[in-house]
């Protein structure tokens, strides 16, 4: 019982430190953008396609969070198969998000010519890239949780591992909600 509480406590501490990292990255993005505007440096504005793509990606990530919540609700009442299905859906949605991000990156790099060399590219790729890395880690973690779930390890009396994965995944979703507004909508 205490071990479970300690694991959750540790996870919340980890997430609070992650929150500060992302606050710094978002702050750096906003400062770089402001500096670019003040100095007349070219900045990027999302076109209709980019905005549609990233809106769909946002919907995908929100839906993936819902899948995790439903998975935890299922294992709370000992529905192990349901948990496995929701974890599979979460991993698929996470993969789709990463695919959407890959499309966006390829458009920005190969069609619009952005790179790490320009101020926009530096700020944008650093912020969204580190977030994408978190999603990638989340997908791997989800698949590992699924493997453990398939062994029948989890039950209504033992699902803290799923809860801790869920905390991480929701955190990644929470950060994206802010990034989506700051990077794409407040240009």
């Amino acid at each position, binding site marked *: 019982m205490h071990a479970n509480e300690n694991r959750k406590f540790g996870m919340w501490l980890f997430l*609070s430190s992650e929150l500060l990292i992302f606050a710094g990255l*978002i702050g750096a993005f906003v400062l770089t953008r402001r500096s670019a505007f003040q100095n007349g440096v070219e900045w990027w504005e999302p076109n209709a396609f980019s905005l549609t793509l990233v809106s769909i990606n946002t919907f995908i990530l929100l*839906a993936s*969070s*819902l899948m995790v*919540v439903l998975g935890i609700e299922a294992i709370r009442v000992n529905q192990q198969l349901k948990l496995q299905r929701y974890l599979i859906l979460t991993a698929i949605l996470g993969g789709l998000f990463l695919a959407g991000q890959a499309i966006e990156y390829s458009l920005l790099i190969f069609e619009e010519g952005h790179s790490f060399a320009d101020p926009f590219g530096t700020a944008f790729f650093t912020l969204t890239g580190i977030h994408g890395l978190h999603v990638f880690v989340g997908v791997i973690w989800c698949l590992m949780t699924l493997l453990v779930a398939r062994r029948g390890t989890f039950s209504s009396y033992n699902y803290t591992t799923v809860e801790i994965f869920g905390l991480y995944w929701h955190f990644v*979703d929470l950060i994206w909600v802010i990034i989506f507004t700051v990077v794409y909508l407040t240009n």
Partner: protein
Amino acid sequence: MANPPAPNGESGAHHKHTNPVLVFGILTLATIFEVVVTLFHLPQNVIVPILLAIAFVKAGLVAAYYMHLRYEKWIYTVIFITPALFAVFLIFTLAM
């Protein structure tokens, strides 16, 4: 009569959680609203605070209902809210 021990070693009674589909619906509608608002090309000093406020409310919903912060021990809220307040202050200050 004492309650039976909660499954999974939970410290408190098992709360009836808010319908997650409802929360998802609110998050989706808020996102659509955000995107639609940007299409009106309102002045930056009007639109930025509105969009940031909506984003932070959405983030709060995720933390409260998806991360179950509303039903968890107060210490988790303190751990998470303290840097969150700093982050909100930082982003608002820089973005305005």
